[in-house]
Each structure stands twice: as C-alpha cells, then as structure tokens.
C-alpha cells in the first residue's frame, strides 16, 4: 500500500468514526432535541411541568373562538388522539388555520388550559395552486362518501 493510500484510508476511517460518534451522541440526546411536545406527550406527563414549553399539533376544526376584545383567541390543539385547549392573546401568523399545524409556546395551567405567549404556524411541504387544492378536497370528499356507502 502506498503512503498516500494509507493516508486516504486514515482520513476515511477518521471521518467514519466521527460520524458514528456524532450519530450516537445525537441518538442519546434525542429526547432533548424536540422542538415541541404533542398533546399525547403532554397527557403522558412527558412535557416539563410548571415550566414554559412548546406544544405542537393541528388546530382542531371549528375550535377557534375569538373573545369580544378581538385579541384573545381560544382554540384546541390536537394530534387526533389527545387534545388540549389553548388560550392566546396576540396576533396570529398568516398561516394559522383550522386543520393546519401550529406550534405554541407557553405554560400549562392547573386547569388544563395551555396559556400561550407565542403562536407559530407550522405548515406542510405541499405546494400547489388553489384550484388544485380545491380539486383535491372535492376528490377526498367523494372518496369519503363512496366509502360511507
């Protein structure tokens, strides 16, 4: 084996070893690297108690209610298994919509209501023109009625 091939092998082994080490470290820190907790995780007491954390999920259809002051909003965050009601006073981002993803930061009150200080919209990776989205919706509805029959 030529010295330069030895060197190349040494570098390759070094990078592979480093990659493995990083993979193991990241795997060990997996639970510390979550950006938000889902309602199911909160229900299972996995979220920090009495401290600020982020709650993420979908805004339940038909759950958004505005208070008379026009700023306070109440809605339900769900992961389809469990759900938590959220109260928030402030401006909502453009993408905040019923049935869409949301990440809220705040504290869980003793009454089980999550008091959010910040609401962020999390959107999905689908990009399409409005007509296509409409057509897709219609197709899904048709599919459902077919299954129901």
């Amino acid at each position: 084996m030529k010295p330069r091939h030895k060197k190349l092998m040494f570098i390759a082994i070094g990078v592979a070893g480093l990659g493995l080490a990083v993979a193991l470290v990241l795997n060990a820190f997996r639970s510390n690297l979550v950006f938000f907790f889902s309602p199911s995780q909160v229900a299972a007491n996995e979220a920090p108690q009495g401290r600020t954390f982020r709650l993420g999920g979908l805004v339940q259809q038909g759950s958004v209610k505005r208070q008379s002051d026009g700023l306070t909003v109440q809605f339900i965050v769900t992961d389809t298994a469990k759900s938590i009601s959220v109260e928030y006073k402030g401006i909502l981002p453009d993408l905040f919509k019923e049935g869409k993803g949301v990440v809220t930061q705040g504290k869980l009150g003793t009454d089980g209501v999550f008091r959010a200080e910040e609401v962020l919209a999390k959107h999905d990776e689908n990009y399409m023109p409005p007509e296509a989205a409409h057509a897709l919706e219609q197709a899904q509805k048709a599919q459902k009625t077919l299954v129901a029959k």
Partner: protein
Amino acid sequence: MNFRDIAWFKYSSPASFYFLAGKMIPWFWAAAAVFAVAGLYIGFFVAPTDFQQGEAYRIIFIHVPAAWMSMFLYVVMAGWAGIGLAFNTRLSSMMATALAPTGALFTFLALWTGSLWGKPMWGTWWVWDARLTSELILLFLYIGFMSLQAAIDDPRRADRAGAVLALVGVVNVPIIYFSVKWWNTLHQGASISLMQAPTMAATMLTGMLVMALACWMYSIAVALMRVRCIIVERERHAQWVSEMRGQLK
C-alpha cells in the same frame, strides 16, 4: 474514448488548469445568466399562487436552491480538501479554498431569505429548531474554515489545517438534511426527495429546479475565477507566471 486516454494529471497541474479554467468561465457565466432569467421568469410569471401561502411562497425560488447549494458546496469543498490532504495535490486544496466564500454566501442567503419568509408565515424571524440551528452551524463552519486558512501564513499548512476542519464539519451536512425527519421541527419536511414523488405543482418545481441550475452554474463560474486568483497568487514565483506577466507588459 477510454477513461485512461484523458490527460487527467495534466489538468491537476495549476499551470494548465489556469488556462483551462479561463476558457470555461465565460460559458458557465452565460449558462448561469440563461438559467437565472428563465428560472426567475417561471418563478414570477408562470408558476401559480400557492393555496396556503399566497405569493409569499415564491421565496422558494431562491431559498431552496441556496440551501441546497450551501450543503452541496460544503461536501464538495470537504472532498477537495480531503483529496488535497491525502494526495498532497496543490490544486485540490486551492479548489477547496476557492469554494468556501461561495458556500458561505449561499448559507447566508438561505438563512436570510428564510428569516424574511418566516416572519409573515410562521410568525417569527428565528427559532432554535434543529433545521435552522444546524444550518447556522454550517455558516460558522464556513467562516471558521476561511478564518483558519487566513490565520496561517504558510499556504500548505493552512490547507492541511483547513482540510481537517472541513472534514470534521462534514458530519453536519446529513444532520441538516435529515433534521426535519429525525426531530420535530418548525421547518417543514422536504417536498422533493429521491424516494418519493415531489409534493409540489409541476411549474413551481420546474422554476425551482431551473433556479437551482442557475446557482450551480454561478457557483462553478465564481469558484473557477477565484481559483485562478489563488493559483496566480501562490505560483507567483513560478516561471509560467512571470512569462505570462511578461506578455501582459
């Protein structure tokens, strides 16, 4: 033509590569211009409005190509640096040095455009989620690579030190790419991957891919220009450089 017939080693000499690069640069600039004009035209006039994000989604025509380039250029840079380290080839190390500023530029562009888009769409300029944080680390890696090389006077030693840093940093690239899969992040998942059909309307996708090509061509053109400067700077005592200077006078 046989693989062995090409004079590979001829062009690994800085002197002959200098002239080859000089001939290629205008072509890459021209291609970059054509793709950029076509991509921007598709992006602004052909691609439809998005059903959720409205017009704001058009950020993807620069944000996504920039983010791709930032990761890809890092891998290429680390690859050249690694080859330079292993085989002691001068030109490969120069190539790595030449790629770093462009990579840093694209990383910055991806972070900056993402932030501008994040405020109206997510409701925040910045969050410390896995995707955004790892991309920021990538920017620091580029800056670290450039500063480390600039801090060492002897270019050959600077190459070796930079190569080690670049190779260590390469582990960050898969972390960036898979961060949206491995952890729950605010940043959405990938719309395009090798394994699945893209979740994006065809014209939007075309615009984005054409812009990505424009970014490729631009990167190659500026990297070649930069490597030519580095070659002349480092080889200034070589005979071919003084001959060239003689011709210029």
